[in-house]
């Protein structure tokens, strides 16, 4: 299997946390993978993206037109990284407005900010929420809910229960969205 995922957002949203979760999932199944982080100088607020390539790769960077999946924690950061997606790839993004028409991708957007503002989940769980939306909407996503749960427990046992709650909330919320 070869599966390339880009996770995009800005500093402070927990982009790197998500790539660690996916790395753990791959490691647990003894799948080869390579991941990398792209961020500039800012600590908080600057654009951040992470690449994770599962399968027999030798360099960690995802080139344009290659990604199977793009997870956007922020709409603009998702749009910025769209050139990395392959034709027919999936983009799952937190977005307040619909994406442009006519994209050669499967587009799944959800207004996670509004849900967090309404108190449905804490904003610190945005990254896990979007992972839940991914699980619910992307048919060829390589990991199961159980595998993600296991990784969430491994990465931080103390907050695993809250994270898993957010994950399931997102899965229920996102069933069937595609625009």
């Amino acid at each position, binding site marked *: 299997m070869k599966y390339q995922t880009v996770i995009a957002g800005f500093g402070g949203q927990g982009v790197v946390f998500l790539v660690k979760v996916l790395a753990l999932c791959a490691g647990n199944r003894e799948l080869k993978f390579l991941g*990398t982080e792209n961020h500039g100088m800012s600590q908080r*607020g600057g654009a951040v993206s992470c690449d994770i390539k599962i399968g027999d790769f030798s*360099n960690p960077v995802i080139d344009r037109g290659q990604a199977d999946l793009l997870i956007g924690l922020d709409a603009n950061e998702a749009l910025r990284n*769209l050139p990395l997606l392959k*034709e027919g790839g999936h983009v799952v993004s937190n977005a307040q407005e619909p994406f442009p028409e006519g994209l050669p991708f499967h587009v799944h957007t959800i207004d996670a900010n509004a849900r967090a503002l309404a108190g449905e989940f804490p904003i610190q769980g945005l990254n896990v929420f979007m992972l839940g939306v991914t699980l619910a909407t992307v048919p060829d996503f390589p990991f199961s809910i159980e595998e993600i749960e296991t990784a969430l427990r491994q990465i931080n046992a103390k907050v695993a229960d809250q994270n898993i709650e957010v994950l399931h909330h997102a899965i229920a919320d996102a069933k069937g969205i595609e625009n």
Partner: protein
Amino acid sequence: MKETLMGNDAIAWGLIHADVDMVSGYPGTPSSEILGMVQKIKTKLKLPVYAEWATNEKVGFEVAYAGAIAGKRTAATMKQVGLNVASDALMSAAYIGNTGGFLLIAADDPGFHSSQTEQDSRVFAKFARIPVLDPSTPQDAYDMTRYGVELSERFQTPVMMRPVMRVCHAREIIEMEAETDFHAREGRFVRNIPRWAAVPRAGRLEQGYEALDRIEAISAYNWEEHLKPQFDALEGKSDVLILASGTGFAFARETMEELGVEADLVKVEMPYPLPVEEIRKRFENYESVLVVEEPYPCVEEQVMDPAKVHGRLDKTMNRIDEMKKEHILEAFKKLGLYEGENVYAPKLSFSIDVPPRPPALCPGCPHRDIYYAIMKVFKKNKSIYPSDIGCYTLALSQGAIDTILCMGASVSMASGLSIADPSKTVVATIGDGTFFHSGIPPLINAVYQGHRFILVILDNSTIAMTGRQVTPERFNQTLDIGRIVEGMGVKCYEHTYSHEMHKNIDFFKGIKNIYESEEHRGPLVVRVRQFCILDNERKDDWVPGEYAVVDPELCVACDQCTTVYKCPPMAYNDEGKIEIDPFLCAGCGGCLEIICPTDAFKLDEEKSGGGK
């Protein structure tokens, strides 16, 4: 044992598994996590290891190097521009050599992700005439760390390992030793004055000959151990031979697989010293040779044969900036290895305009408020603002910085600018970490020569930009910046950051008056005590928990907050009014006075609980 690790973590484990028990260095992206991870392993396994941040790279190099001349296995870590600072020590150490293994880890940053230059440390190793190893993946980095320490001990020379950011910050499953059977070398300095204290001319000349012999021997070893077995195994699949170093190998191999290109590929693990004659002999079997490496043409220049060798020098590859597989595809096309389509072209038929998200100071960062106050008092047109390397560099977006050169240069450039353009007030800014690193000698210079400028030391008590490593003063409070400055015979004016903007502005107004008074001579030094908003140990003592909202009736869309104050949560909404992103606001309260000409920022009473 298999373990998922980031490249820098793999290097740290490699050091421990090579019995390295002294590690020093200075933080710098992308190298910073190496020493931090050694500290974590040390604590976890209760190992007798010295692993401490030095005040700068030169000091770190020298501490570690001294351990290696006393027989220990040691390492120094830094980023590529940090190596410039340590270069004086490196150049001499390359002559003198060492007895215990000494690994210099210099991490490069092709693509300028967080560095002011794209220089290639492999070329520096060549300049210093020491061997350099170039890992292509985190696994390589683990293996080469151990190998490099052995190599250094065997040939009695410092060895450099040069991982790039795509190795340091890459993550993969590493195969590493399951057990840590740690045996530190006993440190015993054996007096050998002709060696350890060699002086010009005779002593150093002799060492120069020895260094040349060493590098020749290592070059032959490089051929026998690394290159010859690979060349012998080549099948002659193509007219083009590909020589690839470090990540260049990883990029080239993957591009070949994805494009279905069959070609002979050699991985250069030690890009200096190269057995040039042996390599060139093997070129005879090929029409052309493509060198894939970054960021400088280090291998290419060594094996150069203008009739055959292609790469960065003849623009077959990209000349600058981080390598992409697309560049390799283009090079394959030029050399006739590939004729298909550009599979790395984006699949979008139209472009989407996305507003840029330039690097910014964090919401709640006190640097923003201090720079705002400085600009308010000293004015854009009447002053020059040299600054330095650190988070505060990002105040560029506030228009509050005029020059950036390298660590510590704010102070010496303030001297130079004050001499060259005395019509302006020079207000220099430097962080506490950078002041300790290299801001002290230029301040002594300014004091003794009586240069007129204002130096503001932004003291947040941490090396924030690289991940909040400890500063000397934080670790040992007897090292007081104020007392250091006063030791130069200069008063150090103290200010404590306040989220009430008028207090910061009033302080700098007072400073301006003192500076312009007839009695004042020479540089005027200010230390502003601050915090870092990401510093969990200290920030709660500082942040008032005063969250802001905008009164849309008062907002006149004047752009003051988005251009002069520049706090990331502030942006225009669909109604053309400023709105504060509630998820981003840190509750610092810094914008609640003075920032807005119409006072549209109001305390969000509900969210703030009335403040602290």
